[in-house]
């Protein structure tokens, strides 16, 4: 007990002997850990988004040739006919991308026109209240605005807003905001308006925007989302839907929603992969910085180690001493590096900071905990070489090396 106390005191003295060096090392470890926490949070955010998609048991039906090729709207009834009882195939929601842009404002909007009757049932993570569902069904011009979009443009429920779709008819349409609320796992930017309203406008204004001959302006959707009851049903309908339209003019490609979204994410700079590389590189920097300190510490205390050895401390104990010192250093750095982004992104105005793709940067405590663990591993790795060198050092050699 006494010796253990003594060892702790010795460790403490060692760390405070060169307080400046301890502080600098902690900082040099803390900053890479901060970067690690942030990049892991972004990756986790993407993963969480994908996991939610997987949990929703939804299929995305697109055109087999390309995502951008439209599908005939009539496919909805055909897909629904696969299960008329609606017990296994719960709902089908058609959607058409219309983008959008407010007059004289460069910021693009992300808007989809969707089937109003099945939207709420297909997307429960939108968290619509009964009242909002009712409004969406009753008002042709209703629009559900993504919470962060609503914040950006200062839109609130009850507002009448105008914007131009990025596709025909290209002229401003009026919408009535019925929902701007947040909900867990809800996509915070995308707006949803009603497909029937959009199509009606499209048909009405066809002469204006010059609907070309031989082209049917309405009756097309970009994709269908199909909500299934169980995982088995999901696998069944994924094949059944494609079989249904095989050899038809517009063959379909049905994927589960996670695969569908992942395809887009991978095209955006391959974000998850590149961030992982970055995280590894920064950890490498932290190891280097800590290893530097430990080897400097050892060199300064060469004579001490020699003395310890000569009075009978075994190599293993000296090894543990060096390792523990490095562990403590990196633990302090790790705690600082992990706590800073946790506090900054959960309890300061930075909370509302948005990043592309996942929007809210959610720095979770277990990511911080994981980073702390990694900081400890950094400590072990950084001290490996100095600790082995110290343990192996012969008394004679060390004493002779001194001036």
């Amino acid at each position: 007990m006494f010796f253990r106390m003594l060892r702790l005191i010795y460790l403490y003295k060692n760390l405070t002997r060169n307080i400046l060096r301890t502080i600098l090392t902690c900082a040099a470890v803390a900053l890479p850990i901060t970067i690690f926490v942030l990049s892991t949070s972004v990756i986790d955010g993407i993963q969480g988004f994908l996991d939610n998609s997987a949990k929703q048991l939804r299929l995305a039906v697109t055109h087999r040739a390309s995502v951008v090729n439209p599908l005939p709207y009539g496919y909805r009834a055909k897909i629904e006919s696969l299960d008329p009882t609606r017990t296994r195939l719960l709902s089908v929601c058609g959607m058409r991308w219309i983008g959008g842009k407010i007059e004289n404002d460069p910021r693009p909007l992300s808007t989809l026109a969707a089937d109003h009757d099945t939207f709420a049932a297909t997307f429960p993570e939108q968290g619509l209240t009964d009242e909002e569902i009712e409004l969406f069904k009753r008002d042709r011009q209703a629009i559900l605005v993504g919470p962060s979009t609503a914040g950006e443009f200062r839109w609130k429920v009850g507002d009448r807003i105008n914007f131009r779709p990025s596709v025909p008819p290209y002229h401003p349409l009026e919408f009535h905001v019925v929902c701007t609320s947040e909900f867990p796992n809800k996509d915070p930017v995308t707006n949803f308006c009603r497909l029937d309203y959009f199509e009606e406008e499209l048909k009405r204004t066809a002469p204006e925007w010059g609907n070309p001959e031989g082209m049917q302006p309405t009756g097309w959707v970009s994709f269908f989302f199909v909500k299934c009851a169980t995982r088995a049903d999901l696998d069944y309908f994924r094949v059944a839907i494609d079989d249904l339209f095989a050899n038809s003019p517009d063959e379909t490609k049905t994927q589960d929603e996670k695969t569908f979204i992942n395809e887009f994410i991978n095209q955006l700079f391959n974000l998850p992969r590149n961030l992982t590389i970055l995280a590894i590189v920064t950890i490498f920097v932290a190891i280097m910085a800590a290893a530097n300190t430990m080897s400097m510490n050892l060199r300064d205390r060469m004579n001490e180690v020699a003395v310890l050895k000569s009075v009978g401390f075994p190599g293993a104990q000296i090894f543990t001493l060096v390792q523990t010192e490095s562990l403590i250093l990196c633990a302090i750095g790790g705690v600082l590096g992990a706590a800073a982004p946790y506090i900054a992104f959960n309890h300061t105005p930075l909370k509302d900071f948005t990043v592309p793709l996942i929007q809210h940067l959610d720095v979770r405590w277990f990511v911080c905990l994981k980073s702390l663990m990694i900081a400890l591993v950094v400590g072990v790795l950084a001290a490996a070489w100095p600790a082995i060198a110290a343990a192996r050092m012969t008394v004679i050699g060390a004493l002779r090396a001194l001036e």
Partner: protein
Amino acid sequence: MPLPLYYNWRNLVRRRMSTALTFVVVAVVVFVLSALLAFAAGISASLAATGSSRNILVLKPGATAESTSLLVPDEVARLHQTPGVARDADGNLLLSQELCIQTSIPRREQHGALANVAVRGVDEVAFKVHPEIQWVEGRMFRPGAMEVVVGEAARDRYANLELGGTIELGRLANRSFTVVGIFEAAGGALESEIWGPRTLFVDAYGRYFNSSVALRLAENADAEEAIKYINGPAVELEAKRETDYYKDLSTKTREIVILAVVLVGIMGIGAVFAVANTMFAAVDGRRREIAMLRTIGFGRTAILTAFLIESTLICTVACSLGLAASLFLNGSRQDFLSDTTWTVLAYELRVTPGIAASALIVALFVGVIGAVAPAVRASRIRVIEALRKA
């Protein structure tokens, strides 16, 4: 009198381990900086090289990109009166009607993840409107034949686009087109595209319209006048200089630059601490030596500069190593999905002289800031005390 450089060099070599570790830290920071900036520079360079200031791009008012624009023949006809449009030797207007569509093609790497590649239907006149298009291999497609030509970047990045390859196009992906030519376009965004006969694409996709029209102006024509005419009541379409259109697409690069600045800022501060740590250790280890130098007549400034030089020496050498490592990325092809056009732009990473300069600035900053405090401490060592202590 300053200390000889050789003195600094010997000192660095003497403390091999900590010099090497500090060196690696700075080199990694420089590498991350130049790699991130190389992404941004690659995209900017590709988009900046696209388009000609003599060209005007006409879209439907309200459309945000070529891919969502729709021009009917009637609207194209109104463009024929635009003032200042150039004519070729046969007297034909240099007015190129273009149909932009997209197709999903697997990438060559990454387990063949699909990418949305732009397909552009053009007539023969397009190659006069876009004279930057040069043939690298093969030839131009014959009008009316099921043939396409492919940009160099697209060929390198996506499967089956080499000379002689075939791709399935059309709304039902049931028309087989053969690749008969590979072109380059001064490194611009057009190199990420597939070009083919417009009339066949119109039929294959059932799109009886154009997406955009590119006009080439005569050498001395006033672009502003032409744009005003097209935006005005006579035509009522939206005209932009081609170069402006592509400049607007490069807003994405700003995000990467911001990311690079934030990340490298944090890592750079970490590196400053690492350097300061090493230099403090160096100073402490050499108190006696410094006192000796002072005694034989070297001034405080000489000591101060010696330590600054020592640290900047580590950092500049590390910087060149980091840059050299990032040069391996130079020229590697990446692509990204533009959220305006929904098509991928393949580009080459570029480590430009500007990037090298900013890397050097960061390295010098790290070296100098990290060494200031230790160097000041070294210059203030009290001679008698330090000599006696030993």
